[in-house]
């Protein structure tokens, strides 16, 4: 189960992600992030409510980062916590995209 909520504030489009980003929900996550990146010049993915992520979820985030680069949009992964942060760290995601401790807005 994954829950995705998109809202715009202070010039940023914030996609709040809750639940699990696994092989079953990754497509839904990628679609929401891609849609945000296609429509907004600044997108923040808010991971504060995410309990779990696997390589399939990471791949969705990577694909969104690629789409952002192609669209010349800013894309930041924010509020990574606990084991989710650990998975980002061991996968070297900091070399691939902007990671912020807090939301930019």
């Amino acid at each position, binding site marked *: 189960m994954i829950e995705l909520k998109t809202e715009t504030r202070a010039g940023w489009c914030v996609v709040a992600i809750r639940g*699990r980003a*696994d*092989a*079953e929900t990754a497509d839904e996550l990628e679609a929401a992030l891609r849609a945000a990146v296609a429509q907004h010049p600044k997108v923040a993915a808010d991971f504060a409510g995410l309990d*779990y992520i*696997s*390589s*399939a979820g*990471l*791949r969705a985030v*990577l*694909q969104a*980062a*690629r789409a952002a*680069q192609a669209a010349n949009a800013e894309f930041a992964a924010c509020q990574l916590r*606990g*084991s989710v942060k650990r*998975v980002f760290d*061991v*996968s*070297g995601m900091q*070399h*691939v*995209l902007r990671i912020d401790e807090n939301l930019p807005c």
Partner: protein
Amino acid sequence: MAQSALLTGVEFTLDGNLPELERLADEVAWFCEENALGSEAEFDLNLALEELFTNAIRHGGCEGMKNAVRIRLERSGDLLAAEFADRGREFDPATAPAPDVSANLAGRPPGGLGLHLVRSVMSDVQYQRRGDWNWITMRRPA
């Protein structure tokens, strides 16, 4: 003695389709609850088992296969032991190349992180081919 050992272990099978991930998560949650394991152990077991499961479906030919995967979890003292067996094509995870996790966006292939994550969260990952089964054992502190 045998009875108390039973309480600390769980064994189940999964069919070869992605919605089975929900059942996998439920089984892991139940095992962790029974054994008073923390959320980090639960996360790591889920992660390692999901990666092996999705690999078996996507690359091993287990898609659509009934009882494609058999999983066994056991706690003995301060150690968790996990066994993962699938009826897919012969595949030793040790033969998969390690991904370059320091590469930038342009240098990232679309896949390859799954087994890296398995090796990151579990130790002593061992592989055997047993008849028609790929058989992987691994451990983690409880």
